[in-house]
């Protein structure tokens, strides 16, 4: 879809400005209800789209094609690695509007992490992924709502307003990339960026019925992503189709010298594998992901999906990831510990909210008490405790050891299976307010996605069915840097289910 749109823009059959205008008018009519956007940057987007159109017109007049994509349109510093490492990505997204989760820095455009403490904060630099998208010709429309500092699974932890699920506006869109998932699901933008620390791209993708991808840790630069839990965070795309996902991934992936944890591994052309058959592929289905706590309707949809894969010639077998039951506990030690340190910089001294408090300590505590929401404060306290003298060994260190076991589970499984398949979330989208009083039940929404972050492996969530009219997500997990294999399988499934009854509802409203 995106590829065709970009091609149409390149040929002059569709003007980039018209596309931006149509997105903006759709946002104008729907977003008051949905609450996807925290910041809209319509004017700048129109201006940039206009430039792209002019540039393309000029290039066509001179007989040449608009080679190299945006050419003189680049409005950035041009630092090394700025293209996301993938030079081939230039021009791939020419004129395509997108939305960016509000924890990814955009120069000159507010970046708040949906927190009072960063309200009005405007970064002086753009994240590497944002520079890469810009270099590829994409047009930033605005910044999307989220759970504050990416801590949450429903979008309700936004300090400003909750986002609603476009499929049923009484329900949550999932989180923490709530606005990005809902915006794509509602057709407000062709694609959006999210970040995934424990499922924050995949789980809302699942709830909203879109495609969400969490790449291998280190595959996509984290430079400019406001850190929640640095050893778990990855930026990933939310799109309507697997092909779109592969296309955007080609732009996002790559080594970034500004991120010491980014991997210097070549980026394959992800779209090349799409359409290849999956016959003979070995898929494992970890039984720990299909048992207790998984809603029957979700399980049935996933089982149906497994039959589709079997029909495609895949070998589907049950397998086991025995340490899965500890993953949630490990996550809620490791992630808050890192967060307690990462969020220490929000102190009212240099930027963001400052609430005076008599002396420096008073200012710190007033600023942080008023600036952070309840869930963020809860996790900072959990993390501070886990790292404290006398508790470090029992909590943080032990969690790291168990994390290694979780990772080893996956290594062993991938010695026998090409991919693992499971539900993305144990339930479909729940109602707004249903779990806000019970953090633990909220945490359970990520039980199927968290182990993937602990292991640092890639995983996708694609729509695979419906339960009570709400989308069910299928999670496909692969070994490190097996993004291509995952996309290949996801694409095969998507093609095989093109006419499925639940697809028709999914397309509604677009």
């Amino acid at each position, binding site marked *: 879809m995106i590829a065709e749109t970009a091609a149409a823009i390149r040929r002059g059959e569709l003007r980039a400005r018209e596309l931006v205008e149509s997105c903006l008018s759709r946002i104008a009519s729907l977003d008051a209800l949905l609450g996807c956007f925290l910041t809209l940057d319509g004017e700048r987007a129109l201006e940039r789209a206009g430039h792209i159109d002019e540039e393309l017109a000029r290039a066509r007049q001179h007989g040449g094609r608009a080679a190299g994509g945006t050419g003189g349109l680049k409005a950035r510093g041009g630092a090394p690695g700025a293209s996301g490492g993938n030079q081939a990505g230039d021009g791939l997204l020419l004129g395509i509007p997108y939305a960016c989760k509000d*924890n*990814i*820095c955009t120069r000159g455009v507010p*970046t708040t*992490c949906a927190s009072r403490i*960063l309200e009005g*904060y405007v*970064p*002086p*630099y753009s*994240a590497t992924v944002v520079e890469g998208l810009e270099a590829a010709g994409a047009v930033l429309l605005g910044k999307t709502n989220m759970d504050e500092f990416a801590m949450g699974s429903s979008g309700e932890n936004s300090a400003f307003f909750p986002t609603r699920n476009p499929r049923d506006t009484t329900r949550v869109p999932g989180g923490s990339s709530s606005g990005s998932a809902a915006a794509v699901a509602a057709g407000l933008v062709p694609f959006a960026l999210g970040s995934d620390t424990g499922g924050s791209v995949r789980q809302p993708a699942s709830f909203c019925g879109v495609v969400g991808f969490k790449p291998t840790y280190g595959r996509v630069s*984290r*430079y*400019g*992503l*406001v*850190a929640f*839990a*640095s*050893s778990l965070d990855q930026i990933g795309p939310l799109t309507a189709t697997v092909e779109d996902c592969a296309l955007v991934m080609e732009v996002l992936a790559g080594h970034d*010298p*500004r*991120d*010491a*944890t980014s991997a210097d591994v070549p980026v394959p052309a992800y779209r090349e594998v799409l359409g290849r058959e999956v016959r003979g592929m070995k898929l494992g289905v970890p039984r720990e992901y299909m048992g207790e706590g998984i809603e029957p309707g979700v399980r049935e949809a996933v089982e149906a999906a497994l039959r589709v894969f079997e029909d495609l010639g895949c070998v589907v077998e049950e397998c086991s990831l025995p340490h899965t039951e500890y993953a949630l506990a490990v996550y809620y030690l490791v992630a808050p*510990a*890192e967060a*307690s*340190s990462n969020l*220490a*910089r929000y*102190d009212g*001294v*240099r*930027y963001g909210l400052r609430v005076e408090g008599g*002396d*420096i300590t008073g200012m*710190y505590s007033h600023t942080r008490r008023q600036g952070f929401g309840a869930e963020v404060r809860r996790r900072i306290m959990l993390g*501070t405790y886990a*790292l*404290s*003298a006398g508790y*470090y060994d029992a909590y*943080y260190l032990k969690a790291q050891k168990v994390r290694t076991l979780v990772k080893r589970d996956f290594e062993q499984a991938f010695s026998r299976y090409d991919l693992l398949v499971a539900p993305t979330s144990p339930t479909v989208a729940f109602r707004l307010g249903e779990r806000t009083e019970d953090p633990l039940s909220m945490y359970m929404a990520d039980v199927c996605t968290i182990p993937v972050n602990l292991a640092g492996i890639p995983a996708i969530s694609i729509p695979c069915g419906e339960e009570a009219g709400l989308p069910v997500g299928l999670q496909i997990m692969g070994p490190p840097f097996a993004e291509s294999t995952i996309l290949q399988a996801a694409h095969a499934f998507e093609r095989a289910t093109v006419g499925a009854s639940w697809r028709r509802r999914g397309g509604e409203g677009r």
Partner: protein
Amino acid sequence: MSEVQTGRPVRAGGPASAPGGVAAGVPAGWEAVIGLEVHVELSTASKMFCNCPTRFGAPPNSQVCPVCLGLPGVLPVPNRQAVELAVRAALALNCKVATYSKFDRKNYFYPDMPKNYQISQYDLPLATDGYLEVPEGEGSRRIRIRRLHLEEDTGKSMHAADDIVTARYSLLDFNRAGIPLVEIVSEPDIATPEQARLYLEKLKAIMQYCGVSDCRMEEGSLRCDINVSVRRPGGRAGTRTEVKNVNSFRAVERALTYEIARQVEVLEAGGEVEQETRHWDEGAGCTRTLRTKEYAHDYRYFPDPDLPPLVLDPAWIEEIRRSLPELPDARRERYVREMGLPPYDAGVITASRALAEFFEETVRAYPQPKTVSNWVMGEVRRYLNEHGLEPEQIPVRPADLADLLAMVERGTVNMRAARQVFTEMCESGRPPAEIVRERGLEQVSDESLIERAVDEAIAGNPAVVADYRKGKEKALGFLVGQVMKATRGRANPQVVNRLLRERLGPPGTG
């Protein structure tokens, strides 16, 4: 360098009297156990984790970027040159360099720390188990070094009052934030305040020799914290205190003398030394409680998830080892052995790389090491001391000093004139021949000229002549002086002496 008031009574607020008659600074019947933690700024072109320059004295907040300001979303990338310099420092201090070390976060809130954590190394430091030697009596004493690790510096606070608690406001300068440091922690092998100073002097010399740091204490590129306790000889180790804010070698000696006396006084009065952190008040000449044990920071160290472990190739370490220059001890020995310098002089000259280099270059042009050494020990150091200059700032070129010494040897100028010429060389930077010519300082050896002055001196001072003839040898000195005065210091003193004796005959002949 350190004309130190060793062991002198310290001013107001100190113990009633300073103990006398023992190892300077340690009261009779007691032993001190001293360990030093030294922070040395590395002479890198850019900061530890970003590309900002490290120049000292730039306007506040002019050498900053999103990374060293700790803005949301930034990531650190280690500076290879900083690692190399740290390895050099470690090897020069005879440390074992770890091929695997890691970066940790040291968490605490302070407004001049942009992230409210400092990237440091905790349980796996870059290097361990080294030593250096300080002179002791005729021989030397080995001070063991426990560890050496890399970390980033903090910014600087300027409080509009004495401290952050009472200040109405504080100003922050982040130019220093992120400058690479090594922290060098000694074992508690130091027994006296003087040894502490000798340790620091040697450490500074070694750092300068291997080009790791310029170690300018006044610019804060070498900073020192003290750990000290006292005990009865052979007795159990006492409770130690930590003393911070010691900003010169002289202050280290003074602070230690004060703190040792204070602890002894507490113990002799039957009290107990509190385990606490104390602050050296340079103006008042005393230490004061900064925070007691209950308020000790819990730094909640944990591995920095933004930085992969630091893995060093043993071959690279060896390459650095081979590139180390001759270090002060080896050089001192060579000066004694090959150049015949007195050990004391060799020690003084080699204590500063700049001084030693100046010495050697002069010797290359004027190969009489002892004469050069006398000049360096005398005139050169006198000029530096008088003008408060560091050896790096010697204002004359070695070749010019060599020329001057050659002129003395040839008899072109006498010593007295040579000293005058040297001072002028320092002030104007002009070559000695030019100064000698312009000032007419050429030594007069023409006997007829000197004879006239001698005759005048004899004729004009009959009483002195009579004294001499009565046997007062000293009277001759007066007459020599008169002749020198008459010739404006240019007469060859040997000729003057000879002529006077010839004219006056042997003393006691009147």
